[in-house]
């Protein structure tokens, strides 16, 4: 039974897609199906069950989920507030320095994100770089480390480039003349922004929000390193299930709950960005 409508002989480009198809199936589809399988079966006897998913209802787990959502939302909003003006400024700069500035923002991404988070720990510690600097200036020291604020800082720093890039891409694509047209028709700067620039940048905004919110929702490394493991996030709970309790079923069940959020975000992106051009990095 042939799966392709056209045999490779008649449609040679179908053959070219084979490595990608294998990759998709082997590394994306199959693992996903495995997570669903583990999530819906009991560890003891493999019978179908909702118990793993219901684990989310335990008070600590709900609290962890709620905290994760809260911190991720705050981080996402902060990223948006920082990234939007930055993207606007980037957009308005002349071409030559443009790619240089973009490079500066992308450059941190070249280094392992874990190392960057640990670097922040070094900076924020009680006897860390920041406080040493403040003491040198005879200023009072800051005690940010091991608080939720430090976690938010870590998330914002880690994920800010993911907000800047899609925003910048979409803004850059707005034709200068469209903005001129709005001004020409009588709109002042505020009106031009609210009615023209912002609506046209919406696909980038949605894309950026997704690319920040989803990963920060599932993080557990940042809360351990910068939060002193004092804050239990949903990512920590899932990690515990897998690592410490060796319970792949409960871990998968909780992961399925998180997947709901991912799916919602993907649906939003699909709705607002039909052309898919805000998700390209360059």
């Amino acid at each position: 039974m042939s799966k392709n409508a056209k045999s490779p002989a008649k449609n040679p480009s179908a053959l070219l897609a084979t490595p990608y198809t294998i990759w998709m199936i082997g590394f994306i589809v199959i693992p996903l199906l495995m997570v669903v399988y583990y999530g819906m079966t009991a560890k003891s006897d493999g019978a179908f069950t909702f118990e793993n998913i219901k684990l989310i209802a335990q008070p600590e787990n709900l609290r962890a989920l709620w905290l994760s959502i809260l911190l991720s939302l705050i981080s996402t909003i902060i990223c948006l507030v920082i990234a939007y003006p930055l993207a606007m400024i980037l957009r308005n700069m002349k071409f030559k320095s443009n790619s240089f500035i973009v490079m500066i923002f992308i450059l941190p991404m070249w280094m392992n994100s874990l190392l960057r988070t640990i670097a922040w720990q070094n900076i924020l510690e009680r006897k860390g770089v920041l406080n040493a600097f403040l003491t040198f200036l005879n200023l009072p020291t800051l005690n940010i480390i091991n608080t939720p604020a430090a976690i938010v800082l870590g998330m914002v720093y880690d994920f800010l480039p993911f907000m800047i890039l899609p925003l910048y891409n979409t803004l850059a694509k707005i034709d200068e003349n469209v903005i001129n047209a709005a001004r020409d028709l009588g709109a002042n700067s505020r009106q031009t922004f609210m009615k023209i620039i912002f609506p046209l940048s919406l696909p980038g905004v949605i894309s950026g929000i997704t690319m920040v919110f989803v990963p920060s929702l599932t993080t557990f490394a940042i809360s351990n390193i910068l939060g002193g493991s004092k804050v239990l996030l949903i990512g920590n709970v899932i990690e515990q299930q897998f690592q410490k309790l060796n319970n792949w079923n409960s871990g998968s069940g909780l992961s399925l709950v998180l997947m709901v959020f991912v799916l919602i975000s993907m649906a939003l992106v699909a709705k607002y960005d039909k052309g898919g051009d805000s998700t390209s990095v360059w």
Partner: protein
Amino acid sequence: MIENKLIDLIHVTKRYGNNTIIDDLNLYIRENEFLTLLGPSGCGKTTTLRIIGGFESPDEGQVIFGGKDITKLPPNERQLNTVFQKYALFTHMTIAENIAFGLKIKKKSKQYINDKIKYALKLVNLDGYENRMPDSLSGGQQQRIAIARAIVNEPKVLLLDEPLGALDLKLRQDMQYELIRLKNELGITFVYVTHDQEEALTMSDTIMVMTQGYIQQIGTPEDIYNEPKNAFVADFIGESNIISGTMIEDKLVNILGCNFPCVDVGFGKNKPVDVVIRPEDIDLVKPEEGLMQGRVTSLIFKGVHYEMEVMANGYEFLVHSTDLSPVGSEVGIKVDPFDIQIMNKPESEDEEAVMPLE
């Protein structure tokens, strides 16, 4: 009726870095006038338009509108509207919302706006397109919506930046007539930018030919065409033969060794001049009947006329005629004195810079 001065550009200069785009430009535009700024790419015509519109500020000089100095006024406070080169429609809004944009800013009533939308769409022959999205329209339709969006605000002046550039020939010609009709119906001033001289000749009351930031000539289409002031204008508008010659005395010029009677005076005696003859003004006759003799070197049928090249006394003349002379035949060249245009040779360096290479 073309009446008083509406817009006045006084000593306007604009520079980008080391480049002077516009140098000491002085120009006035009258009410109800269709003025075309014509010139090759980079000549400064679009910059001039943008300065009038307020999208650029001049480094020196003033812009006067209706007697008031609007040089420092931002675009949204000027009583003119612009039709941009690639339409610049708001792709996230419907056609109706696009057209209504300026009116909503002015806080007009809903009823007023709806009436205006209907009126505008009717004016550009796109009734019923209110709820369509710009992406679903063809280039020509988008252009008309862009025009509708601009005129619905009843501006005193409409600025158009090469609006027909992206359309195919037939559509372009149709739109040209549409624009003329609109101008007559609405009675507003049009300032039109293009590099297409045919478009300029078709639609304008007045043409301003520009290059490298300087005005070369301002005049009616007939003036520009029949009596170009210098070689650049002559070369840019229509096709022409531009030959070096010598003005023997008033009404007589020597071209390539042959004397031609002409009608121009005041150029002095035995002065070197540039001579302009339009291809359609050259008659090919029997060799002995012509003032100069030559041989036909090429013949192309162009539908409207035959285009021939005739080599005579070292110069290849371009000839347009409805009669053909076959390649290789010996012919005589005859030109009505009235059709010979004499121009001064360029004196200053600047002028020399704009002379086309022979």
